[in-house]
């Protein structure tokens, strides 16, 4: 395994972050990677949603994200991995989550980012609510989130 493959940059961001700057820094840090997949999740602009709030539980949220990063690295051969997830109040267009996976070959990078996102959506310690003119409303996980997650139970590890 290449030097640095054991490391993952995992952050719980309490303030806004700049995805372009994060991606540029990640790319520069992994010159040996032939493929880098980055996924950005942002607050979508839809009718009536004024704000989105993600809440976390300090004793468990970041430790859970670190455990997820370890699982991703154990499953795919990566040159590097970065997971940044916001907590706090966001507006449409604001970044929520950024996953960067660097690998020698692209398929490992695609799969690692996909796996990380499915687990961040429905198996990490975040609670989401949105604000409309009617007030705040908690968002429950969708059925698709669980079917997305279940895809990984039966697939080969590599």
């Amino acid at each position, binding site marked *: 395994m290449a030097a640095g493959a054991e490391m993952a940059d995992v952050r719980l961001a309490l303030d806004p972050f700049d995805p372009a700057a994060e991606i540029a820094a990640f790319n520069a840090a992994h010159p040996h990677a032939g493929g880098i997949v980055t996924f950005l999740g942002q607050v979508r602009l839809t009718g009536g949603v004024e704000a989105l709030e993600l809440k976390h539980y300090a004793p*468990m949220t970041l430790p859970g994200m670190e455990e997820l990063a370890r699982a991703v690295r154990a499953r795919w051969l990566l040159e590097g991995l970065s997971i940044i997830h916001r907590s706090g109040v966001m507006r449409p267009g604001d970044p929520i989550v950024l996953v960067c996976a660097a690998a020698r070959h692209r398929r490992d990078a695609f799969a690692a980012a996909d796996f990380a*996102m499915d687990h961040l959506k429905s198996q990490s*310690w*975040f609670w989401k609510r949105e604000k409309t003119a009617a007030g705040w409303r908690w968002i429950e996980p969708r059925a698709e989130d669980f079917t997305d997650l279940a895809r990984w139970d039966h697939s080969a590890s590599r």
Partner: protein
Amino acid sequence: MARLVFLGRLEDVAGMPQTEVPPGPVEQVLAALAPELAVALLDEKVRMALNGRLIGDRGAVVLGKGDELAFLPPVSGG
């Protein structure tokens, strides 16, 4: 005292993010809360974590002084 922490929508049901309670068996602690809150906390989809660790057998929990019991409804991240 011990602390109860209410995550997600449970914070709205409780009307507060956390509260201090006298230590003791969890059923005794819940019995002292508003019935509507106790019912919401005992929903089968709500998980519990004692001092940051998920617990399997919810009925067996006894809160000691300084313990923190968190109630975790279904998550939604990303």
